[in-house]
């Protein structure tokens, strides 16, 4: 028995799905990847990704959703796989085979995206015509009864193909705004026929699908269904929690083996899966489902670490711990927990870059794992980097996430790596950012992981070691990389060196005294972070000034709206479209768009206009610059730079 299995005995106890047995209670939850071909055929890239998930040690692995209709009305992502014809079976079989090869239970998901589907069409389909609230999606058309009946049949045929392809179980997706959930919710279902109206009517379409599939697949074949436990659409006429429970009871009664419960829609006005939601927050919904439906329940949603799932499985609340983003970030999560080396897990920081990519018809990306989608390419080192033929001495200046990422990979390839850090701790700007409120401390998981990775690979990190130009010239190394990060640019505005001007990094590290009335100069995510930090601390009168139309344009769309909402709630004055002219002892002098002079009076000016740190430069041919020291970007760019630098040697 491996050490982690003793620590988390319930997570690693065999699980049961109908008559099937799984080796543990971890289920990789379904995720779109956009890796497949546009005609719906499975790409090798997808197979390699699924292989990674199965090899990682999960007891059950779910494929991405497959659309069931030939018209592609159910297709919500350009690279989604299809299952509407027998011609897709050989491709799907590759996935089933590769999951089985690593002793994992394979599950195929059927998904009709409904209201958020029709990605290649100029319309979507749904139970009723209810206008879209999110600009990305197209207007729905009402489905006729014939179309609905055909759709049920297409799902049944999909389940048949799922068995023919060799999958152990079938899953139906009815969450976040996909077709089944559209029928369930009174917000989108305004029908008066047998598929709408009453609670039973709204449950009829999903019920028929489940019943139809059950009839097709026989008594013993497991059927999993994903349904919302709470739609969080209370402001626009969604189901109450009690109604949802009753509807789920009707649907599950038609022959469901296990319920995977989720929370919220894409249109929900509340946070569901972002960092401000504490881990394990939604467990009460799984509890209520389990208690009332008496059916095995599994759940994903903000469960990144094994402690809470362990407790929930021990209590009997959930049968399986589903994991989606945490396993995109590191498919080997189950193995690493089992071996009790959680520090080796590449931690998901809930940045939602993966979601942002999918919504732009791009392939899935992961900020913390650049090898995503390159699992079959040895140079990306997903299964470990090959030893370098020629061993080099590599020196990296700056132990931020870029420096540590690059250092760890170089050391794993066998190079002799030294990282110099001027601070007394590693992590750079990421460590600073982790002082922010509402879950930002999770960034430290990433910093700690990279530090451990450097240590284990043998890269030496020397803290409290500031490098000057002279020392840089004297370093004898084959390769030198400057990853010195970014600092606020004091020279951008007149008066930037005044006594009342401080750096945002010093503020967030609590290294300077600031007055009660502060003005933040900056327009990107950093400025917003500082404002949120001060709001959380309390007692400050905060304003932000910058020349752009909106602040935080670089921030992920799934975060920025709630940040702006919090700024507004806290009374932060936002001076958008203001050109900064000068900083004086009184405050910031700016010009609005009509060229009127504006004085923003304050005690302290906080500079958050990040620019590459040019304190250290060199003309030596073996010196490279990377990360924010090259171009200031978000964390994903920093990690990608470090990764690509490491891959080079």
């Amino acid at each position, binding site marked *: 028995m491996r050490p982690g299995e003793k620590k988390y005995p319930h997570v690693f106890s065999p699980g049961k799905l109908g008559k099937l047995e799984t080796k543990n209670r971890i289920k990789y939850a379904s995720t779109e990847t*956009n890796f497949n*071909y*546009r005609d719906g055929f499975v790409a090798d890239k997808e197979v390699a990704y699924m292989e990674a998930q199965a090899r990682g040690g999960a007891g059950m692995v779910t494929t991405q959703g497959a659309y069931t209709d030939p018209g592609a009305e159910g297709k919500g992502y350009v690279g989604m796989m299809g299952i509407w014809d027998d011609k897709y079976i050989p491709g799907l079989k590759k996935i089933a085979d590769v999951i089985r090869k690593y002793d994992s239970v394979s599950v195929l998901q059927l998904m009709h995206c409904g209201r958020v589907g029709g990605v290649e069409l100029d319309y979507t389909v749904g139970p009723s015509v209810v206008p879209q609230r999110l600009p990305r999606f197209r207007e729905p058309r009402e489905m006729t009864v014939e179309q609905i009946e055909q759709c049920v049949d297409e799902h049944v045929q999909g389940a048949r193909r799922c068995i023919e392809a060799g999958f152990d179980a079938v899953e139906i997706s009815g969450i976040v705004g996909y077709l089944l959930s559209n029928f369930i919710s009174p917000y989108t279902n305004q029908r008066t026929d047998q598929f709408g109206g009453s609670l039973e009517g709204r449950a009829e379409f999903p019920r028929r699908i489940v019943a139809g599939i059950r009839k097709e697949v026989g008594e013993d074949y497991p059927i999993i269904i994903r349904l919302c436990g709470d739609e969080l659409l209370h402001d626009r006429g969604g189901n109450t929690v009690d109604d949802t429970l009753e509807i789920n009871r009707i649907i599950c009664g038609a022959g469901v083996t296990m319920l995977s419960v989720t929370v919220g829609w894409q249109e929900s006005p509340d946070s569901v899966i972002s960092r401000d939601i504490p881990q394990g927050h939604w467990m009460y919904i799984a509890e209520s489902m389990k208690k009332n439906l008496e059916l095995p329940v599994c759940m994903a949603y903000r469960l990144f670490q094994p402690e809470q799932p362990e407790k929930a499985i021990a209590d009997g609340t959930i049968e399986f711990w589903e994991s989606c983003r945490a396993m995109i970030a590191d498919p080997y999560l189950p193995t690493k927990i089992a071996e009790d080396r959680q520090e080796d897990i590449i931690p998901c920081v809930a940045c939602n870059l993966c979601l942002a990519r999918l919504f732009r*018809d*791009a392939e899935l990306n992961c900020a913390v794992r650049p090898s995503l989608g390159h699992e079959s390419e040895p140079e990306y080192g997903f299964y470990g980097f090959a030893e370098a033929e020629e061993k080099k001495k590599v020196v990296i200046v700056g132990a931020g996430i870029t420096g540590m990422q690059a250092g760890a990979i170089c050391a794993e390839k066998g190079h002799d790596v030294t990282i110099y850090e001027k601070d007394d701790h590693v992590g750079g700007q990421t460590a600073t950012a982790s002082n922010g409120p509402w879950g930002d401390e999770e960034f430290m998981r990433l910093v700690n992981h990279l530090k451990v990775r450097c240590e284990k690979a043998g890269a030496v990190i020397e803290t409290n070691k500031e490098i000057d130009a002279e020392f840089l010239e004297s370093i004898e190394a084959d390769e030198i990389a400057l990853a010195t990060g970014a600092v606020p640019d004091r020279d951008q505005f007149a008066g930037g060196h005044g006594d009342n001007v401080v750096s945002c990094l010093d503020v967030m590290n609590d290294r300077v005294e600031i007055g009660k009335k502060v003005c933040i100069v900056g327009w990107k995510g950093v400025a917003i972070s500082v404002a949120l930090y001060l709001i959380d601390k309390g007692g400050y009168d905060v304003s932000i000034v910058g020349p752009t139309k909106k602040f935080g344009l670089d921030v992920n769309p799934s975060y920025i709206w709630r940040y702006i909402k919090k700024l507004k709630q806290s009374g932060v004055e936002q001076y958008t479209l203001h050109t900064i002219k000068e900083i004086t002892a009184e405050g910031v002098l700016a010009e609005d768009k009509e060229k009127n002079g504006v004085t923003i009076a304050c005690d302290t000016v906080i500079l958050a206009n990040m620019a590459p740190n040019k304190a250290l430069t060199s003309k030596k041919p073996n010196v490279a610059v990377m990360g924010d020291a*090259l*171009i200031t*970007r978000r964390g*994903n*760019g920093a990690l990608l730079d470090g990764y690509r630098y490491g891959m080079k040697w």
Partner: protein
Amino acid sequence: MIPLIDAFKCNGCGVCVKRCPPQVIGLVSDRAAIVEMLCEECGICAEVCPIDAVIFRLPDYEPHGVHECYRATR
């Protein structure tokens, strides 16, 4: 998937240069050019290009192993 600039089509308007989040697109001979090593594959350049001169799409189907020209008899 790193976007490909259709250099025959690009008119050098510079919208992608302005909107690229990591600022890694510039103009070379009045055509947009991406610093590929720093590209984050986000696809915003393709989204904002007013004349669809940025090619950023998944392959339509599995590429065939044998090219047409080898089959042709001539």
